[in-house]
Every structure is written in structure tokens, then in C-alpha cells.
């Protein structure tokens, strides 16, 4: 067989494979959204009696909205913690040398690669040993700490593109480190930081493996959904899931645009593996 026809054959099956993979990736999401309008419940083909009842029911469901509020609160504080420690961590990895630097880098990134159960359990033991009562605060500490990894990788990637001459100029012109940090370094990292915040927010809103072990009396949204799934399923869960999907979609597309703006095509995980 000639090279040309083999190339043609290759480019013939590849698009079909791609279409099949996309179908596989989107099938559950589409099903979820379609059945959120299904009058007959979560199963049953074809969907019939299209209705908005499940959304109405959802909007009247106080427990869900209380958990949404909890999740928003947790995510906001988690973003703050992750940025407050993740930005300096990225700077430290970029421009400081200290004993144990390699171990520190691995430790910070570990929660990203480790199954959530290990981080969740380890924190549970910490809180038990120190007699801290489980509540939203412990969840916030868990999310914030685990997601420092995301802030660090995102900001570290931004730092690689940063022109150090600007900071040098600022220092030469008499600004102190504090001023240089706030007026030169941070504004230059703006896109990476906003992108990191969006990503951390989305991940925290969705986080369940760590929260599972650190939950007190108040549920976050994923744990509220989890509790209901154990009791039986209704399209109300499809409805709230569809709404979450729309919000994550907006967050992700925004994040993507920011990353493209900051440094061309983003490579999530790629720089993580190179560190």
C-alpha cells in the first residue's frame, strides 16, 4: 500500500474516533439536562411530558439553597486562602533557594495528584488530635490547603512569562520590595491570578472527597446532593446539576480565555508534570 492511501485511511478514522469520544464525554451531560425537563422522572425513554416542575420544586427547596450558600462561602474563603499562600509559594519556587525546596514543591502539589480520600482523612486526624470541631471551617481549611497547588501551578506558569527587568527597574528607581510587589509583580500576574481564582472557585464548589470527611452539621452543595442520592433520585437533582453545569461552563470558558490571553494555549497539568 502506498504511503498516501495509508495517510488518507488514517485521517479517515481519526475524525470518527474523535466524534465517538466527544459523544461519550457529552452523553451524560446531555442526558442530565434533557431529563431535568422530563415529567416522568429520571429514566424512561423517550422523555415525555416536558415540564419545568422540577425547577419550580428546586427553587422552593430551602435545604438546597442553604447548601448552595454554604458552598459559595466555602469556595470564596478557599480562594482567599489558596491565593494568599499559593502566590508566595509560586514566587518562592521561582526565586528563592532554601533547604527542602524540592520536597516543599512536591508536598504543595501532592493534593492535586493524590486521591482526595488520603488528604481528607489526614486532615480529619489532625482536627481530631487538636480537638477542633468539624464544621464549614474545617472544610474551608481542607479546600484552601488542597487548592494551594492550583494557585501555585497557575501563578508559577505566569511567572515564567514575566519580564524580571520591570521589577528590577522598579527597585532601581527607588521603590521598595513591598511597593514593587503590589505595583509591578501582582499587576503583571493579573491574568494568572484571576484564572487561578476561577479554577479554585469551581473546584471548591464541586469538591466532595475531602469534604466528605470534614463535614460538620452544615452541608455543602455536593454533600447535600450526595445525601439525596443515597435516599433515591428525582429530576430535581438533574435540575440543580444542569444549573451548576451552566455556571461551570461560564467559569471554564472565561478561565480559558484568560489563560490564552496570559500565555497562548493553556496546558493544564503539563507544567505540573514538569516541575
Amino acid at each position: 500500500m502506498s504511503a498516501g492511501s495509508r495517510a488518507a485511511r488514517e485521517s479517515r478514522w481519526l475524525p470518527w474516533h474523535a466524534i465517538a469520544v466527544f459523544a461519550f464525554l457529552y452523553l451524560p451531560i446531555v442526558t442530565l439536562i434533557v431529563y431535568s425537563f422530563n415529567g416522568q422522572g429520571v429514566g424512561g425513554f423517550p422523555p415525555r411530558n416536558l415540564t419545568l416542575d422540577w425547577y419550580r420544586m428546586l427553587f422552593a427547596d430551602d435545604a438546597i439553597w442553604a447548601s448552595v450558600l454554604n458552598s459559595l462561602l466555602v469556595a470564596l474563603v478557599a480562594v482567599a486562602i489558596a491565593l494568599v499562600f499559593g502566590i508566595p509559594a509560586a514566587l518562592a519556587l521561582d526565586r528563592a533557594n532554601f533547604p527542602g525546596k524540592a520536597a516543599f514543591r512536591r508536598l504543595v502539589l501532592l493534593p492535586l495528584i493524590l486521591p482526595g480520600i488520603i488528604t481528607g482523612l489526614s486532615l480529619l486526624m489532625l482536627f481530631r488530635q487538636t480537638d477542633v470541631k468539624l464544621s464549614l471551617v474545617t472544610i474551608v481549611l481542607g479546600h484552601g490547603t488542597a487548592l494551594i497547588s492550583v494557585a501555585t501551578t497557575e501563578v508559577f506558569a505566569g511567572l515564567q512569562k514575566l519580564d524580571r527587568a520591570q521589577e528590577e527597574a522598579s527597585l532601581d528607581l527607588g521603590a521598595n520590595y513591598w511597593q514593587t510587589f503590589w505595583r509591578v509583580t501582582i499587576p503583571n500576574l493579573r491574568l494568572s491570578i484571576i484564572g487561578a481564582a476561577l479554577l479554585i472557585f469551581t473546584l471548591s464548589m464541586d469538591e466532595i472527597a475531602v469534604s466528605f470527611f470534614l463535614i460538620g452539621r452544615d452541608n455543602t452543595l455536593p454533600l447535600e446532593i450526595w445525601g439525596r442520592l443515597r435516599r433515591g433520585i428525582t429530576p430535581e437533582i438533574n435540575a440543580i446539576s444542569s444549573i451548576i453545569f451552566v455556571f461551570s461552563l461560564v467559569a471554564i470558558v472565561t478561565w480559558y480565555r484568560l489563560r490564552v490571553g496570559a500565555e497562548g494555549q493553556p496546558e493544564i497539568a503539563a507544567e505540573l508534570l514538569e516541575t
Partner: protein
Amino acid sequence: MFSRAYRAAITLPPLLWVAAFLLIPYALLFCYSFWSVSPEQAIVHSWNLDNYRELFRVNVYLQTLFRSMWIAARVTIFALLLGYPLAYFLSFHAGKRKDLLYQLVIIPLWVSYLVRAYAWKTILGSDGVLNTLLQYVHLTKHPLEFLLYSPFAVVLTLTHIYTPFTFLPIYASLEHIPRNLVEASHDLGASPFQTFWRVIFPLSIPGVLAGATFAFVLSLGDFLAPLLLGGPSGIMISNIVVSLFGAAYNWPLGAAISLCMLVLVIGLLFLSENLEKKWSFR
């Protein structure tokens, strides 16, 4: 150019925080695994290897660990079979649509894990979407029971979740291949088949290793998909840990199992990192 004080200011706060909330907790996990529980359900801080002996004495722990590894291995293989050709297509053949398609892959990645596992449950159940569809078109008369509450459902769902994870590093490594290497291979008379196997594939091995490690490690430790879709035959090692930390109340034994998992995971990460270095031409 950076003063000592500046470097201390950027290093110490994250270092202390990470020590308090990551290093100490992981160390506690280690300590707990050598402790035990008294009949009054208090943690006894006496150091011994009983939990590890128990682990090797009772068959169910090792059996479940091996079953979890087998599930994770299948997930990894399927994720590679789905992710690699997709990454190759995007990187080499997608042309102007590359950017859009890339976004389409990463969107499901960040869509709630729980929501996607739940969606599969509504598809695979005995009166779920798939079974009622099959009966609607008269392909089957009765619902297929093996679809839900089986290792099959767990493998399918985890493959769905980790395919984009596997795709990402592979795509990154394909994108880094200098295109003139590929052209040179063509110009020197290699067929596309030869070019792929002798130039492109070897250069993408670090990405494959990274993607495979992600898929294997993260699915190995999963406990939510098995709880939701696995049924009794789909139980994984983390489910045992969860029950030991809950109703069964034996934290030290749970810690010992977690620590074995942690060691296994870190060993794999270490191995894959070294293999990546070996295969890295950059």
C-alpha cells in the same frame, strides 16, 4: 536581585501553612497506622504492627486492593485508547478547529464529578435511559441488570471522568514535538505509519506516562463512584477505608490501609517520573 527579607517573606508563610495542614496530617496518618483501638473505642497510642499484620491476615483487604488495581488498570487502558487518538487528531489534523475542540475536551473535565457519576446512574439503571431505550426499540425484552451496580459501571464512569485527564498531558507532549522533525521524516521517505511509530509516538511517551499515572492513581483511590454505581461486586479499597472510619470504627486499621495506598501511589509517581525523564528528549 531579591533581598534576604523578601525571600523569607515569600517563603515562610506558605512553608508554615503547608507544614501545619499537609505535612503534619500526612505524618499523623503514618502514626495512626501503628496505633490501635481499645474495646471502649478509644485510640490507644501504643506502637505496634498489628494493623499491618491484620492487613495481610484477612483476605478481603488484599483482594479488594487487587480488584481496585484491576479496575484502575482497565480505566487507564480505556482512557489511553480514547485519549491518545483524540490528542493526536487535535494536534495534527484538526487545523483551525483545534482551539474549539480543545475547549470541548476540557469542559467535561471541570464539570462536577458527582453530577457526571449521577448522570451515568440515571443512564445505566434498570429503568434507566439505556434500558428503556433498548426496550423501546425492541432490542431487549427485559432490562439488562449488569449495567448498573457492577464493576462495569464503575469502569465506565471512571473512564468517562479520567479520559480528559489522560488527554491533557498527551496533547501537551504532542504539541511540543517540533513539526520539522515530522516533515524531515516524510521527506526522507518514511510512510505516515513509520513516522508515527518511529518519530511521533516515542516523543509522546512522557505525556502517555503522565496521563496513565493520573488515570490510574486517581481511579485507584476513588470511593464515590463505587458507592454510587458499584454495588457489592464493585467495592474498592477506599470504600473499606471509609467504613473503617465510619460505622466499623477502626481508624488505625483504616490509616494503615491508606498508608499502603499512599506508598503505592508515591511509588508509581516516582517510577513514572523517572521513566518520563528517560524518554524525554527535550
